[in-house]
């Protein structure tokens, strides 16, 4: 069957099997390998991307179901070479180690901040509780999301982000 959807602002059309999962469509058909696959059972959340602005677990969405809809993946966070504050927050606060759960975490966090720009720690923990990180223990992920909330305005010059690769 043929499916057409908008992915990160661009319209894509592909011939697929009806059973193709959205996660495999993104990864194998479109080469957007930033969305990862981790469990099959909607428990780990490493496959989270947006469907019409809502975070979904793409391992449990058929690509066909996304036909006619808008998908946003981690590759769509950076705009014109400028990182989204959530991406910068994860770098600044050591919100990742192996990086495997990170795209899903960031997509969920971005959606949270879009509807609640100043979430409490409890709210943040609740928002990411459908996802598993095996490396960080979550405290630094919470800090990363808080950093992004504090630096929502990209032109906030009062706290210059640290540069990667230089000791402070």
């Amino acid at each position: 069957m043929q499916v057409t959807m908008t992915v990160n602002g661009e319209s894509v059309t592909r011939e697929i099997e009806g059973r193709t999962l959205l996660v495999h469509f993104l990864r194998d058909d479109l080469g957007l390998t930033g969305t990862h696959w981790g469990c099959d059972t909607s428990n780990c959340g490493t496959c989270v991307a947006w469907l019409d602005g809502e975070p979904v677990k793409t391992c449990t969405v058929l690509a066909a179901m996304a036909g006619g809809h808008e998908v946003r993946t981690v590759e769509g966070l950076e705009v014109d070479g400028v990182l989204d504050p959530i991406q910068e927050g994860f770098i600044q606060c050591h919100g990742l180690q192996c990086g495997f759960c990170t795209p899903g975490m960031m997509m969920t966090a971005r959606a949270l901040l879009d509807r609640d720009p100043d979430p409490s720690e409890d709210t943040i923990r609740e928002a990411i509780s459908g996802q598993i990180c095996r490396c960080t223990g979550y405290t630094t992920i919470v800090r990363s999301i808080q950093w992004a909330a504090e630096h929502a305005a990209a032109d906030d010059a009062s706290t210059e982000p640290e540069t990667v690769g230089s000791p402070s």
Partner: protein
Amino acid sequence: MTLIEDRDHLEHADNDQKPIGHGRMLRKEDPRFVRGLGKYCDDVQLPGMLHLAILRSPVAHARIVSIDTTAAQAHPKVKVVVTGAMLAEQGLAWMPTLSNDVQAVLATDKVRFQGQEVAFVVAEDRYSARDALELIDVEYDVLPPVIDVRKALAPDAPVIRDDLDGKKDNHCFDWETGDEAATQAVFDRADVVVTEDIVYPRVHPAPMETCGSVADYDRVSGKLTLWSTSQAPHAHRTLYAIVAGLPEHKIRVISPDIGGGFGNKVPIYPGYVCSIVGSILTNKPVKWMEDRTENLVSTGFARDYVMRGEIAATKDGRILAIRTNVLADHGAFNGTAAPTKYPAGFFGVFTGSYDIEAAYCKMTAVYTNKAPGGVAYACSFRITEAVYLVERIVDCLAYQLKMDPVTLRKKNFIQPDQFPYTSKTGWVYDSGEYERAMDLALDIAGYDDLRREQEEKRAGGELMGIGVSFFTEAVGAGPRKNMDILGLGMADGCELRVHPTGKAVVRLSVQSQGQGHETTFAQIVAEEIGIPPADIDVVHGDTDNTPFGLGTYGSRSTPVSGAAAALVARKVRDKAQIIASGMLEVSVVDLEWVKGSFHVKGDPSRSVTIQEIAMKAHGAGDLPEGVEGGLEAQICYNPENLTYPFGAYICVVDVDPGTAEVKVRRFIAVDDCGTRINPMIIEGQIHGGLTDGVGMALMEMISFDEDGNCLSGSLMDYLIPTSLEVPHWETGHTVTPSPHHPIGAKGVGESATVGSPPAIVNAVVDALKPYGIRHADMPLTPSRVWDAMQGRATAPI
């Protein structure tokens, strides 16, 4: 909480004096990861690539009567179907394990655990490969399985390993350490002896990325390139040469970005070998990625020790001796990754952080119809089990003596002036200042206030518990004279090249799975040679482009490879000094090294930078007599001893008296890993390990029914902590450098996984004190805690 946050920021205070190398530094890896541009194994796409899927045994123990692959082979998208019998014709049906046992690549005679590999299919796409598995018809003659480890050696137990010559039982190995007679003598005269049966259940590392590989065999050149989820690419290359009979120079193993390892990616799995065979047979690149169930039911598990702990002491709390008897479940094949002379890993450090008179351990390991493996999940070669045993049994002693667990521990600590300290089982602890770390943890926790709060809550019927653990680890294997994996000495190479413009590339044999090696190793080299970390590229994970070494596990990267990186940089600096002496026209001994430049002693104005020296080394002009051009070096570091990091952990829990649910309210971790290279990364490693600890103590267990069906084959059944089960971690640190490590650093990657489970269990047991409970086994799920409260506590297996 302000106080705690302030302490987190104090993390970098001791490194601020060294701005070139060590200190908090954002990671060089992160810009690609936050863009979704990491390249993991499943991201590898090659032209014409085919997909491999594995048919696995549905039963734990059965003889294979027949396998019919006709229908699968007829599937239009299937390229090849392979069974064990076909591999056997090539001599590839069995492969060596990391413990000198053998393991079936594909079963030929019997299946020995549920999930064992039986056949594989290579097809045009991943869905078709899976479809074809359904078309393979296997007839099994089901045999009674051995599931209960305690019954494995019963005279009538079915023999699992009848593939081994003359094997008539399920015995795997016996091992002992310490002095049995001396220990008995001490027990005989002790005032108090406490005995407790303690089980460390089978758990699984379950990294977020499962295991997989992409094999690409070039039939013209005869070269195999294998992308795989490997924590030890060089060791794997050598083993593939042995297993597959391929010449080693024709094998290139690439470990791309790895989505978490925790020991799960140390062994060679049948799937890797199948992908190689698949590529050779089809003449195409072949990808194998296991799914989550395959990962949980078939790959390297961890723990599974049934321990009887005994502790002897005086009535005033002086610990005299510790003795333990262990029954170890090694599954169907002994796939433990441990140094040859250490079949029980480093379990011998079970005497912990205490100065005692005698110790003895006797262990029996057995085969069962369960998945092979054994050393994984950040266990530091079984130190996790050892620390859990000693820290649990010490708490049992405190319970018996009605002593505060902190007081009891402090009374028995090895003292700073006793280092280097030789333990009663022969381990030489390099350095430690235990009481200082314990006091810092008590201070951060506000221990006395917590005890007062607990007293008040108990009076009101609330169940609050405070748990303490103090651990010492032994990490950084070699030395090579004692430690090897299948004959390969546990040393690590490192190569450093400084380019003409003063930028550098350092090549490592170890393999990051998230530890941030590209950052940390740039910092280590920067500190030694004065080139900023941003100007140093770190290459790892490609056997064609890095020196040989044994890889990353057992917290060995910093103790071994980190030392190699520092020493190779010093070697380059030594050469730079000779070149600088020529440039400044003074003797070598008249030069002084200061942060990236040599200057003439007493005349700092006459100096050359490392960048100027690099250009000179590659330039057209003359170099001092006998000096070759270029500025590079390579070494292989053989550690003199292990390093012995330690830490003091305090856990505060609340147990709901109505539901028996355990909530970890606070967790304070004070760690000492010697010199701290990047405090931010260290803190991250600690946080991750603490979370593992919560998982193991409260949630995680790989369990089986009596038929050997794995009951934990998905993340719906194998529970891993989310953000809601763990608290906001509170950390602190002390610094006691390792005297033998070139920069004084010790490993830290597994400290928290090792140290946290006993603190959490001790806290829960402490909370249940009003019920007269001295011990309860992990995982302390609400139902198990409830049973304990009703006096029905049982072992989990």
